[in-house]
């Protein structure tokens, strides 16, 4: 990735006023380019789904700012432009417009997200680039819509376009347009949408050229460099407040009943973040394979949102960050790996695993303001959309997307319950629009029988998750409808945080006319729903925050009143007991919770490294406690449970080593997954809860340098303070057991 250059710039020309004015004008311009797309594109995925973006880059392809609705595109745009520069170098001339879509050679997020790029010139001097992207409804390949779960090679997925010219010196390269038109379905619509991107590029060229010329091209470049640098400087300062150390997490992508291991190790070193995905599963013949820049884009978006919600989203956010993704794995696949879901499957698992590493680091960083944003895993990284095809009596075909399946419920966070249906299809902070049921029924041959927030506990915790969407639909006026599931997180739920339980997984069901129901796999295609039958999607949720047995009993009562959960859930999951009426019986609740904590301890395994009283006595435990993880503090070389004072570990062992461990299988069909909670050995309160494929060891490790460097004095039985940990680390590269695929 691009490193920042030291600023040897005419600083005197710029100050906090001029730079802010410049930023305002640059952002206004790219928003204008984006609005041009919205006005001139014609396909509903753009005009209604708002799946488009415009990105402004400097002369070398460094990200200045973006507009439109899909921030996920912006870093991909930077990658696309850098690929174009690498391929064409000095041959890039005024009036050129480039097109690319192939992630293997320089495209956008997937084949459908075409990148139209225009170098912006003042005279013969290139001063910037505009790169515009929208999702073409079809880009050719083996199935309409080009999402082909059955593809085993990228050649089957659609037209692969390396950076090529659509215009050369303002003259249309008609050969290329013909080639594209010939190879895609809905060619007229596709061409119009492409032209809308070209139109947006022209708007950016005109406005930026005038601005750069009025400032002078040298000053324009210097001003942009200073804007990016000011952001990078602040980003580095914020990273500097995160505790140095190594933080590891592992998670798994799913295909059918197979798991694909994706470990991440984050090294926080001064003002740098390095995310290393070494140990990731090899690429596989499924369209879920991804690319480094796509994971970086998702990671940058999430990290920007946690560390820098107030900073302009620009190159400056990415400069202090590095990704390492070994080639030939699902996180950095090479051709001919199929990649048309490169942005919505493995990528989501991978970047969210990286974000979990950052959350572990923030949890151990007393000085980092961003620790206030601790939550469970982002629910936007679970999705359960499906596409459907119907043919009516006259032979008319309809293809439509049930996007409500992507509306998972967000994880709980510090002091906050999650929000229902809060996460978008793409991008964390823009939820795509809701479909009106009447519009849907008017457009498509379907009836909607139910649409609600998913019932049941979802991700439980002191602060619970929101609920995903639960929707039931059936064919109307046609014999049947045929579906293709684009789902992830069928088996392995998203984790919570701070001892909150993992969330709900995506579920797809067909209800037969006889009242029976049949489960559908998350990547199944040719799912047929006959007239009189119904299809149901129950979309996933994130996890809870904090132990559910610590949830305020009145909040639980309110959830019952709102019919989110019933009283049986309230008692079994939250330990809340009701007498008469809607108010909880607080005395009975305290009693019940006491029993549930005791029961947990009774059923749990003893710590892998129990500590004796003498261990503790000889250790100095003075000084201020430092946070290690919510509920866990470090005093010198000792990790304690914050609420009971129970000693959990002595440095450099992992703090979970002194926890009792409760492992419970997920009660359902399919590949075995266990929910494992690390308990305070005294109270039974959950401190960290993880969902892992059965047989997998602990899936995270938090090793702040201030902890691993603690030296414990030699004691009488000869045990040294610096000893290799016997606990199992995540991301160590060891082969997975059980039904995992690695």
């Amino acid at each position, binding site marked *: 990735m691009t490193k920042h250059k030291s600023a040897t710039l005419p600083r005197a020309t710029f*100050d906090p006023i001029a730079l802010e*004015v410049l930023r305002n004008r640059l952002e206004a311009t790219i928003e*204008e380019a984006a609005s041009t797309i919205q006005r001139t594109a*014609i396909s*509903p995925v753009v005009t209604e789904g708002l799946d488009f973006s415009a990105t402004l880059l400097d002369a070398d392809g460094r990200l200045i700012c973006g507009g439109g609705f899909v921030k996920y595109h912006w870093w991909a745009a930077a990658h696309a432009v850098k690929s174009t520069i690498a391929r064409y170098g000095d041959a890039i001339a005024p009036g050129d417009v480039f097109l690319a879509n192939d992630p293997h050679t320089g495209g956008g997020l997937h084949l459908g997200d075409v990148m139209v790029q225009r170098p912006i010139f003042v005279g013969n001097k290139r001063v910037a680039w505009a790169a515009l992207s929208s999702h073409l409804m079809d880009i050719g390949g083996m199935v309409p819509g080009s999402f082909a779960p059955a593809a085993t090679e990228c050649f089957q997925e659609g037209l692969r376009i390396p950076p090529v010219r659509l215009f050369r010196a303002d003259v249309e390269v008609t050969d290329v347009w013909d080639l594209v038109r010939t190879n895609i379905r809905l060619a007229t619509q596709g061409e119009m949408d492409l032209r809308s991107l070209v139109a947006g590029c022209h708007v950016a060229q005109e406005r930026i050229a005038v601005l750069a010329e009025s400032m002078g091209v040298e000053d324009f470049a210097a001003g942009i460099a200073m804007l990016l640098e000011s952001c990078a400087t602040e980003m580095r300062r914020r990273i500097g407040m995160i505790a140095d150390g190594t933080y590891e997490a592992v998670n798994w992508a799913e295909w059918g009943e197979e798991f694909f291991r994706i470990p991440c190790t984050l090294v926080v070193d001064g003002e740098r973040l390095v995310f290393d995905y070494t140990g990731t599963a090899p690429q596989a013949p499924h369209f879920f394979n991804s690319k480094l820049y796509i994971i970086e884009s998702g990671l940058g978006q999430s990290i920007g949102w946690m560390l820098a919600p107030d*900073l302009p989203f620009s190159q400056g956010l990415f400069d202090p960050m590095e990704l390492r993704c070994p080639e030939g794995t699902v996180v950095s696949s090479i051709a001919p790996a199929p990649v048309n879901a490169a942005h919505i499957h493995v990528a989501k698992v991978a970047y969210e695993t990286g974000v979990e590493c950052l959350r572990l680091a923030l949890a151990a960083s007393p000085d980092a303001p961003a620790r206030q944003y601790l939550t469970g895993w982002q629910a936007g990284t679970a999705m359960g959309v499906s596409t459907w095809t119907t043919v009516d009596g006259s032979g008319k075909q309809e293809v439509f997307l049930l996007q409500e399946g992507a509306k998972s419920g967000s994880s709980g966070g510090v002091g906050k319950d999650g929000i229902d249906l809060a996460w978008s299809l793409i991008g964390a902070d823009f939820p795509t629009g809701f479909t009106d049921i*009447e519009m849907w029924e008017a457009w498509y041959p379907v009836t909607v029988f139910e649409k609600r927030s998913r019932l049941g506990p979802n991700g439980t915790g002191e602060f619970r998750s929101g609920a995903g969407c639960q929707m039931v639909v059936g064919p109307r006026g046609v014999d049947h409808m045929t579906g293709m599931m684009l789902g992830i997180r069928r088996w392995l739920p998203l984790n919570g945080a701070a001892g909150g339980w993992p969330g709900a997984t995506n579920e797809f069901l067909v209800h037969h006319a006889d009242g029976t129901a049949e489960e559908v796999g998350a990547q199944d295609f040719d799912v047929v729903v006959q007239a009189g039958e119904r299809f149901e999607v129950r979309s996933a949720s994130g996890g809870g925050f904090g132990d559910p047995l610590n949830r305020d009993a009145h909040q639980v009562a309110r959830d019952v009143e*709102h019919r989110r959960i019933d009283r049986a859930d309230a008692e079994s999951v939250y330990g809340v007991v009701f007498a008469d009426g809607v108010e909880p019986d607080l005395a009975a609740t305290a009693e019940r919770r006491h029993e549930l904590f005791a029961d947990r301890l009774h059923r749990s395994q003893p710590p892998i490294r129990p500590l004796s009283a003498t261990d503790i006595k000889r250790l100095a435990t003075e000084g201020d406690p430092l946070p290690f993880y919510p509920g866990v503090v470090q005093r010198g070389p000792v990790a304690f449970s914050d609420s009971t004072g129970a000693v959990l570990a002595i440095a450099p062992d992992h703090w979970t080593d002194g926890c009792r461990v409760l492992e419970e299988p997920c009660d359902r069909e399919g590949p075995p997954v266990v929910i494992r909670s690390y308990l305070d050995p005294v109270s039974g309160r959950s401190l960290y809860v993880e969902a892992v494929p059965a047989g997998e060891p602990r899936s995270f490790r938090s090793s702040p340098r201030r902890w691993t460097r603690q030296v414990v004095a030699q004691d009488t039985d000869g045990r040294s303070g610096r000893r290799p940990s016997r606990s199992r680390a995540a991301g160590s590269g060891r082969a997975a057991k059980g039904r995992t695929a690695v």
Partner: protein
Amino acid sequence: MTKPSRTKPSLCVGVDVGGTFTDVVVSDGSNVWRAKALSTPDDVGRGVIDACMAVAQQLGLSASAMLARVERFGLGTTAVTNALAAHTGLRTGLITTRGFEDILPLSRGQLVREDGWLAPPAQIVPRERIVGVAGRIDRDGAETEPLDVDEVLGAAAHLIEVEGVEALAVSFLWGFRNPAHEDLVLSAIEAAYPGIPCISGARLYPVIREYERTMLAVLNAYVAGAFTGIDALTGRLQELGCKASLLLVHSGGGSITVPEARRFPIGLAESGPAAGVAGALAVATTSNVGDLVTCDMGGTSFDVSVISGWSPTRQTRGDLMGYWTPLSRVDIESIGAGGGSIGWVDARGMLRVGPHSAGAVPGPACYGRGGEAPTVTDALVVLGYIDPSGFLGGGMALDSELATRSCDLLGRLLGLDPEETAWGIRQIALEGMARAVRSRLVNRGLDPRQYALISYGGCGGLFTADIARLIGSPTVLVPALASVLSAFGAATSDIRRERVCSLAVPLSVGPAPIRGAAEDLATQVEDDLASDGIAAADRSVVVEADLRFTNQVAELAIRLPSPSVDAAMLDRVQSEFFTEYGKRYGSGSLMRSVPTEVVTLRAIGTGRTTTARLPQRRLSTNRTAATSGSRSVRVARGAGGLEKVDLYVVDDLGPGSSISGPALIDAHDTTIWVPAGMTARVDRWSTFVLEVTR
């Protein structure tokens, strides 16, 4: 003091009840008087009467003598706005289709709050006050599952007796297509609970899209109680001898009678801003400008709306104070930039302005009420644009030292001196406003070079000329009534009645069903106007069709030549749709093979009323404008940026006066900045017209 003309004794009164002040404008056709009084939020009518007494004094009349001569009394009110903003509406419950009870609580889009978290949607009806009942109507209006009235009564009993609701809304899927189920609910509730207002979504606003139709019904029920103050005012005005019945400005920019407002109170949610646009249009019309952007800069916000072809841009679906509704209204965008907007330094060390505002309390530092952060107003004082002794016509003295000190404190963080800091605050506020105005136009495919700007509200006059220069707009209008334009709008807007009906049929369906619906709507609106007391000769009704390509989201309103639709008319409508669409989205974006759909029909009735007029004066072609001194104003950064500019007082100017910039014009409670290279002249209606000097 000007005496009211004896030959035209009837008066038009317009009142705008704002958060702080209640403004009043009185016109007799040849003269205009204005006054202000403090608003009285606990009893709206008191502030209104106070304002009337103040203005009557200027006419040399008692309040009752003045009111006896009033032929029209128009009111822009924040009563409904306040109920929504302060969440003081009635405790409301909803009965809806079973299986869909969660839809309303799931908002459209979440807000990212300032602290970085997503905000859960505002809940006007929490989930426990929503009950689903069996019964389905399908998309063709056919009943597929019957409604059980006993179940409805059970739901109502629960909501009223257990949940304690004070108002009910009922809204079912496809109810607009066949309101039979909602009608059954209405009559059952009315019989069982006569004291509880019950609003049917299908009857209130029969348009497709369940979420927004339901939301509007719920909101209408919620604000049903916001009307007590208006009723009291009506009584007081009658006691004082006012024979004119009160007219209220609604969000659509027209007026409605009190009974209609009581039926549809949510229509008043944007009454004040809509009145401002109506006033702006009235002024622009006299100056013969039909394409313009209205720029209303107040203490906390900068409100922008576009008028094209003498017609305010309208919006039929969108966010209304945080709630997504289908309410047809004037499309006004508000950004957080006003006189009270605060300058601050962000994490990168850059200077930023707003959206935080010092509000009225503590207000800008120069108010001397304890505010320490520098605001836009403070910057304008430091830079010399605002005369601290002459603020609000001298009614309020400002402390320029406090202004300078606040800029100094901020400047230390930036390494800038107070004047440079003040310059930066003004410049960055200006960039933000210019960006808002420009994007308002270009996002609709409109060319800023063909649009004038009209400026009103607090300190707009100090910015609008520079905004125009930044975006390439040729002309700026500053009305003489700039500081009370909403009140003037309330005195000038005609009665406007609307009814809608969702069709959702392809244009190819042929004229018969469209004609049937259009004629029904037109007749109903004609009857509405008649019931408002509008004589037949003063009534006019037009019907619009909202068209779009099938499956699109955005719709275009095309006016039907008459409700008597025939095949030839549909052909014309089709081709007009293609033309408009091409104009707006580029002709290359047209796909004629996609069927065109008629989504909604809307009948708009206008009832001509007696309205206030701007007084017209004789244009003196050879009037010289005498300066009343000069002031040192910073017109550019750095050394040499300080310039002595001529100062004019509006009373010394008259129609025909012409002033070359740089100059400042003190126009009572507002100041106008004329930059170098621009000329300001006063037209026959006392409007300042600023243009680039030729």
